[in-house]
């Protein structure tokens, strides 16, 4: 038979909880009420923190940053599936995952306020800092995954990126390296439909991001990214499979950027409010709270309490942030190399002498 079918594939979409908070019991991940509450709390904290960061930015106390409001279901859900031994390799729109993994809020503010010292994680936290060059960090995740496997650790790596990042050549190379070396890596794409002003259909002709996995011999799945249970379940399964030597996977969280791209952007220049409104109705936090209320895990008072608790934590962090000393000048030179080189020492000394002379 001269025209034969060599391979066939299909791409699935996973949904566990609908907009009303109703769940499919057969797919519902095994999460204790405490864990669900914890998940809810960190999602709310993420939202409150994000809103506060916007204020700080508008006041000139932070630089440009990328808001996460509306994407808590995706990246918080995914990071919630991590074990302590796992690594996370983020892009720049995963504030909730930073909080969840143990980064202190004041340090997060410190970094986005223009001080590199805010990039230091508490000892033992397995996470890399935000990566600004789009699409480049997934290769680090692949290499890190290889390292974990080679050491015989039963751990996996979660790397997060936007759908725009899948257009970069490095994405393709990372997928391929991870597949060829069967690295324990979960590639998690927050497909929020926009890369600044470019909508997904101008970014790619592929119906889904998930199907990009097929070209690398890797499984690809789409989940409703505003359904935190679907995200948690799919990522948990993929991480566990990776830890067990099952190789990498690509997961596309189908979500939406309801905010501007960054605080320097004005999304009204290029998209319709109607589209945004439609997605606001699928808000991942409200959806979870509906589920929790229906299942006796939350009531209105509790909801207020969680929010107020979050506000209190954020206020405390902002205070700590504002008390921070600016970095001393020698910080510019301190960590270029393990040991400062003579040319750098000379440049540093010249600067310090000059600054002294001024004082």
């Amino acid at each position, binding site marked *: 038979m001269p025209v034969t079918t060599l391979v066939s594939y299909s791409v699935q979409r996973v949904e566990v909880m609908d907009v009303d908070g109703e769940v499919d019991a057969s797919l519902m991940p095994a999460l204790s009420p405490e864990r669900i509450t914890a998940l809810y709390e960190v999602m709310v904290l993420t939202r409150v923190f994000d809103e506060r960061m916007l204020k700080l930015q508008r006041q000139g106390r932070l630089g440009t940053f990328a808001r996460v409001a509306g994407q808590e279901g995706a990246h918080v859900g995914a990071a919630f599936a991590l074990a302590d031994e796992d690594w996370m390799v983020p892009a720049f729109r995963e504030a909730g995952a930073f909080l969840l993994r143990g980064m202190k809020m004041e340090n997060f503010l410190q970094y986005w306020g*223009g001080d590199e010292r805010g990039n230091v994680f508490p000892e033992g936290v397995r996470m890399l800092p935000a990566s*600004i*060059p789009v*699409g480049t960090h997934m290769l680090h995740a692949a290499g890190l995954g290889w390292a974990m496997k080679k050491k015989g650790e039963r751990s996996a790596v979660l790397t997060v990126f936007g759908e725009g*990042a899948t257009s970069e050549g490095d994405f393709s190379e990372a997928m391929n390296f991870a597949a060829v070396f069967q690295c324990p890596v979960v590639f998690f794409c927050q497909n929020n439909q926009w890369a600044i*002003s470019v909508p997904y259909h101008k970014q790619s002709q592929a119906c889904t991001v998930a199907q990009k996995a097929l070209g690398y011999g890797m499984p690809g799945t789409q989940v409703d990214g505003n359904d935190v249970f679907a995200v948690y379940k799919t990522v948990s399964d993929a991480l566990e499979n990776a830890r067990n030597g099952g190789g990498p996977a690509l997961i596309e969280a189908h979500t939406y950027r309801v905010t501007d791209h960054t605080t320097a952007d004005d999304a009204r220049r290029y998209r319709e409010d109607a589209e945004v409104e439609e997605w606001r109705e699928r808000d991942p936090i409200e959806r979870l709270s509906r589920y929790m209320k229906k299942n006796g895990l939350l009531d209105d008072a509790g909801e207020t309490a969680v929010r107020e608790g979050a506000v209190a934590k954020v206020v405390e962090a902002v205070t700590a942030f504002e008390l921070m000393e*600016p970095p001393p000048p020698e910080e*510019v030179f301190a960590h270029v190399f393990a040991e400062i080189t003579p040319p750098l020492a000379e440049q540093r000394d010249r600067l310090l002498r000059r600054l002294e002379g001024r004082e």
Partner: protein
Amino acid sequence: MARLNMVEAIDQALRQEMDRDDTVIVLGEDVGRDGGVFRVTDGLYERFGEDRVMDTPLAESGIVGFAIGMAIGGFKPVAEIQFSGFVYPAYDQLLSHAARFRTRTRGQRTVPMVVRMPYGGGIRALEHHSESMEAIFAHIPGLKVVIPADPYEAKGLLTSAIRDPDPVVFFEPARVYRAIKMDVPEEQYTLPIGEARVVREGADLTLIAWGAHVRTIKEAAERLAADKRCDVEVIDIRTIAPFDAATVVASVKKTGRAIIVHEAPQSGGFGAEISAQIMERAVLHLEAPVKRVAGFDTIPPLSKLEDLYQPSVDLVVDEVIATMEF
């Protein structure tokens, strides 16, 4: 004559050249409906449509490589890289292809193309948004590297760059974008690629810079003049490739002293090339060693310490005085 800032002047240059020549195509990330993240391409999408103002996928090597094909196919692509900190994925296409097609085909296939991008610090930006790596492009045979210092320069040089038959990398100092307004003629004009510009004549010392730091050295010269300390000549290099040694050398032969100012890391920055050329062509005329006032050999610090990194008017003034007193 309208008073324009650099963003507006570049936008106008693009619009007018696109009106004049319908093979000119603007492409890049967010250059279309959004008008570019700095609004440099504002209004072009509305005027010329999505076929001539193309929002591309998020891939810099793709943008430049695709533009090479467009150029070989008879168009004049003007590609925008959103920030110069993200041009490195396209470095290979620039070096290995754009710069080489003419040589390797003995002129049969050519790549008339402009790759423009904002560059440089001083804008309190995120990581990777403050780099000044023009030197690594000036070292590529077959590329021209143009860096305007003000709105007038930007319009004329960009028009020339678009009309140039060879690939041009066009660095736009982000710090200057909205910092100054000046008279810019409404009609089209060109400025020569490959010629430095004497911004201010002077007898005692030559200050040399390009991009945002032309303003730094001009201010330094003015302050020194106001203080009656010395009479400084100010040169805007304007195109670091090809480099106009003649103008620099003539000036140094006259003044006997020179200081080169750039924000790029000092080691291997383009200031070294200028110093070396002065050494080769005018050392006997020197009254003091040629100096460089440049960025440190470090990653540009984030905003809290950024000011330490940028050559300041103060620092330049002090270094001029030190050189005068040498």
